[in-house]
């Protein structure tokens, strides 16, 4: 990217990101999106692209690609174990960006990098934004970066027209929800339940009120995640949210079938099943 492109006025002309276009399309077609999370590098960095392509075949609309971290305080056991395996397999921010570059030769799938703060801090915000944009990523979400501390990161990302997605939860008050939305682009990620990532039996009763509250604070698309793993959950959120995020359910498949050559197809088939749940209900 040239120096001229990295200053503010030019950035405003860079146009909609792949993520924004994906939500515009979903909205035009009156569909709900599936955002599929996988931990990069599990079972090995070499297989990450193949797994993303499987999710694309299964109908996932956006990929969240997780950078594994040694101390994932927001994650439940399934993603903790996935992170351990990915780190043992040599996954780093660099290998994640390499996977994205490889993916871009074969797919225009919208892709969000999902990470804890420290690996990105160590890589450097400016360098990360530069390299992520060059690799073909469309944005990032940093789980443990709260809006109070986010300014230098957001500035670096915006210069390269990368989306910054922030999280909001049931404990987030309306005023803070509006602040989170105003710092976010692409979409706002709503955390459906208390606790950490990982499949739950039933949808938390706090999920729908949170979506309704967030609607009043922002016009950005709303995705809901944490605890969602099956078709019934998709059916339950489809009338309300613009997209559902599923992570641990996919990583459980990777954990069980990591050695399997057909792993990509297994992910595709789970994605298809979840998509059916999202398609079955008309929006409210």
């Amino acid at each position, binding site marked *: 990217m040239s120096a001229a492109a990295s200053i503010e006025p030019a950035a405003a002309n860079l146009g909609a990101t792949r993520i924004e276009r994906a939500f515009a399309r979903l909205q035009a077609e009156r569909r709900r999106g599936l955002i599929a999370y996988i931990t990069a590098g599990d079972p090995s960095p070499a297989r990450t692209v193949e797994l993303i392509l499987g999710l694309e075949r299964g109908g996932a609309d956006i990929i969240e690609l997780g950078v594994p*971290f040694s*101390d994932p*305080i927001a994650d439940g056991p399934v993603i903790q174990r996935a992170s351990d395996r990915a780190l043992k397999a040599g996954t780093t921010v660099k290998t994640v960006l390499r996977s994205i570059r490889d993916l871009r030769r074969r797919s225009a799938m919208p892709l969000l990098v999902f990470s804890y703060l420290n690996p990105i801090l*160590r890589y450097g915000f400016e360098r990360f934004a530069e390299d992520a944009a060059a690799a073909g990523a469309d944005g990032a979400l940093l789980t443990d970066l709260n809006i109070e*501390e986010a300014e230098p990161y957001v500035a670096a990302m915006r210069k390269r027209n990368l989306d910054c997605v922030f999280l909001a939860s049931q*404990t987030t008050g309306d005023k803070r929800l509006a602040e989170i939305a105003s710092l976010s682009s692409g979409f706002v990620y709503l*955390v459906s339940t*208390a606790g950490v990532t990982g499949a739950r039996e039933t949808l938390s009763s706090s999920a729908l009120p949170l979506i309704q509250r967030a609607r009043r604070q922002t016009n950005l698309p709303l995705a809901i995640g944490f605890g969602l793993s099956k078709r019934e959950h998709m059916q339950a959120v489809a009338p309300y949210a613009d997209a559902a995020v599923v992570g641990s359910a996919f990583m459980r498949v990777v954990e069980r079938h990591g050695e399997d050559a057909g792993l990509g197809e297994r992910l595709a088939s789970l994605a298809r099943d979840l998509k059916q749940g999202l398609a079955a209900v008309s929006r409210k």
Partner: protein
Amino acid sequence: MTSSVSPLSTDLAARKLPDSLGRFGAYGGRYVPEILVEPLDRLEAFYREAKDDPDFQAEMRELLRQFAGRATPLYHAKRLSEHLGGAAIYLKREDLLHTGAHKINNCLGQAILARRMGKSRIIAETGAGQHGVAAATVCALFGFPCTVYMGLEDMRRQALNVFRMRLLGAEVAGVDTGSRTLKDAISEAMRDWAANFETTHYLLGSALGPHPYPLMVRDFQSVIGVEARAQYLAISNGKPPDLLIACVGGGSNAIGLFHPFLGDESVRMVGVEAGGRGAGLGDHAARFTGGLPGVLQGTRSYVLQDDDGQIAPTHSVSAGLDYASVGPEHAWLRDRGRVAYTSCSDGDAIAAARMLSRLEGIIPALESAHAVAEAVKRAPGAQGQTFIVNLSGRGDKDIGIFRENMPELDA
């Protein structure tokens, strides 16, 4: 008492921090899953209200006196001082507190706060088990159900403390992830809190983690420095000590001793980290020599990490110092040059523990032995000076490790 220094510390910059976002300069702050922001705001609001409430202060004072056994002595270690032939060494005897270490100061404060907040359950993390025992103790006293998270490796190393916590009625939840030590116990406690914040108070044990913990824990531990300062000024005609020494894991005993002296410009301070078994990454817990600024478990501070920003493994013979990051206020005091930080090897700590045991009849905790070792290094040649060493805990819990390292005594 005539005093050449003001009765209360007046370093304005020091007393104002942290700022409203919990920052100490570039350090501290809050880096947590969004769901915890509101519970942390609530905790801060309750803490600020309690702190200025005379009822809270009176209850705290009474419990510290009648239950924990405060004030602790400031003891002149004459035989050790004479042996080293230089500085006069005073020991702040936190080891004499109930449960055997300074940790009880913070636990009592947070337990009163938890009750004021209407919480019905307490969770805590522990490394060596000292904070876990103190937490289990105050939970018994207040009638809170208590779950203490502890790495399986630490449970193995500190089996006696595991039993002690259970005897006190706490549930000890083994953590089988990562390095199975303190860091992993903190992560697991944070996950529990993220799920159960409505009913549960997280009793964090050091001046670490997201705001307001570094502020609150420092304030609860400042009783150490406030007492030591008054005790010393009373015997020195108001002349302050020359040097304060404390070990630094998360850094709660050190900040508790140092903070009330920050306004006394002539008082030098040194924090002693775990030098472990060598200088290689993974062999020590010396964050200020081997670490870089980063974010771990809710706060920005110096962090031992690899080139990819993954948290590095640590080692120390003392489980209480065996942590990859350090309290953010220490990072700020270090960058500002107000406090010097150094490290002490496993071997030097064990030797210092042995020296103190033989010369003074005081068996220190391995953590505190790191501070004693620094005094042993600095005292010779420091004639006319006074050192105050924070003897933050007693060594009963470490007898097994001492035995392994002193086979000649077991013959």
